[in-house]
């Protein structure tokens, strides 16, 4: 397997969709999705269950035809140049499937047989990299869920992929396996590959990925680096003060404040109309009301908070 690799495909985003739409009858699963995944990063594709993540992936990979829109993989238009593009892509859609009556090595051989000759030569290296060499000649029916996930990734590596598309890859992994998986993704990115990782696990995406897109109701709501996404939105500040109840009464009455919420350390304020200039006025109001202020600072928001703000199905999020 190439440790230092050069791209065989045009430069630019590894995935680009424009107005991509997939309908099942009257139901719109992917709604005019516009997505751009930069090369050489771990990219999280984040959305609640049923948001359209898997459908978009299936459409990209040619498992189901698009209803409208355009898409590119590795700079190549698909479906027009699908075979050429997918030759450099490794993908796991939903959970990886195998012939249970065959061994791990035989399953990889079957997958390699439909690729080029070099793929056959990568079987042992792929198994070794995923720590499966000692079980390679056991039937897959005897493998645990975690081993199947690793075998699925080993199968992706047969293509020496520039892009790996992994749909909910940590499903079924124990905490140790998840930790190992994070390191593995970072190693792949370090080799110059791009990992597109679909997940509904916010924590996973925040820990593994450099950039992400948030999808809900078939629409891509937002995309960018993790810090850009987390920082975006309304202007929110944390306030540490003396009499919290008195402060809350004063703030609720202020037209400059949209919302006030209690936190462990004080109050979290959403500034109306994102007007940064309103903050000194709010501070003066509190001081005039006799409230001691110890600290006022921009709220450090997490991806999870931003995600919940953007998506509609909060209760469904793990």
């Amino acid at each position, binding site marked *: 397997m190439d440790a230092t690799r050069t791209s065989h495909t045009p430069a630019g985003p590894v995935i680009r969709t424009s107005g991509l739409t997939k309908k099942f009858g009257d139901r719109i699963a992917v709604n005019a999705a516009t997505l751009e995944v930069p090369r050489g990063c771990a990219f999280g594709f984040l959305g609640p269950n049923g948001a359209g993540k898997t459908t978009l992936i299936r459409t990209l990979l040619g498992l189901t035809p698009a209803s409208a829109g355009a898409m590119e993989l590795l700079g190549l238009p698909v479906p027009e140049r699908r075979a050429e593009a997918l030759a450099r892509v490794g993908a796991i859609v939903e959970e990886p499937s195998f012939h249970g009556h065959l061994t791990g090595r*035989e399953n990889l051989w079957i997958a390699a047989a439909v690729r080029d000759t070099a793929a056959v030569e990568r079987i042992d290296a792929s198994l070794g990299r995923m720590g499966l060499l000692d079980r390679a000649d056991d039937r897959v029916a005897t493998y645990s869920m975690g081993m199947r996930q690793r075998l699925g990734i080993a199968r992706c590596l047969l293509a020496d992929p520039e892009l790996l598309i992994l749909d909910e890859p940590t499903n079924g992994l124990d905490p140790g396996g998840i930790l190992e998986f994070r390191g593995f993704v970072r190693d792949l990115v370090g080799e110059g590959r791009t990992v597109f990782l679909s997940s509904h696990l916010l924590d996973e995406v925040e820990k593994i990925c450099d950039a992400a897109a948030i999808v809900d109701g078939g629409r891509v709501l937002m995309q960018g680096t993790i810090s850009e996404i987390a920082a975006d939105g309304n202007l929110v500040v944390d306030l540490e003060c003396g009499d919290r109840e008195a402060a809350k009464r004063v703030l609720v009455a202020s037209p400059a404040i949209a919302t006030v919420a209690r936190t462990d350390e004080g109050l979290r304020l959403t500034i109306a109309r994102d007007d940064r200039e309103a903050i000194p006025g709010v501070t003066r109001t509190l001081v005039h009301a006799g409230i001691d202020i110890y600290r006022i600072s921009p709220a450090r928001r997490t991806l999870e908070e931003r995600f919940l703000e953007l998506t509609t199905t909060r209760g469904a999020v793990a």
Partner: protein
Amino acid sequence: MNGRMIAAEVLKLVRRRGQMIWAVILTVVAVVVAYGIAWGYHLSNAGKYGPAGGSHSLEGSLWIITTIGGVAAVLIGTTAGIGDQSAGVFRELVVTGRSRIALFAARIPGALIVLLPMVLLAFAVAVVCTFALAGDLRTPSASLIAKDAVWLIAVMTAQLLLALGFSAVVGSRATAVGVLLGWQLALSPLLLSIDQLGPVRQLVPRAAALRLEPFSNEPLGFAMTAGAAVAVLTVWTVVMLAVAARRTLRLEA
């Protein structure tokens, strides 16, 4: 499609040990058992039961291989036709970028490579027994044996490919096996026995197979040319495979 893809199809089939054992039982062992029983009867009462071999026994063996061995063709054909979909592996192969038609096409030689050696072995056993156990009975000529072999390969190939195509069309191995066995073992003989259907019966593949059988001792009950028989078998097989390929092309993987 390349040689490795065909080898992969063979691997998927031969590693199903239980199915392979049954396929051998339904082809080779069935012939051995049939001759064994006939030989046993002959040994027990030579006056009442003639020798187990001879030309007539070869004709019986062909019936055993195409009918009982036909079940093996259905088992192997349906596994080849729907095995990847059933295991969820078809999707994994499609995402490699390989064309669906190539993935489907590789199943055909793969399945034939698995079935035909068994069929030919069963036929070889039958030929050996035909001569070895012939006693004073007439034995078949070399040209008749050659014609029988060609006919057997053609009929078993057609049965296998129909099973492969049909299973890919219906998308369920259990349904395909049930329907095909019902058709092969019950419905086809029944249709051929209904005189009121007249020449329409030419459309039944079994009629075509019987018409082409080199011994041609079994009367069809209606006229059918050899050309029509070849056409019926060819059209059934080609149309079934074409429909299956189209279905594979459009399948939500």
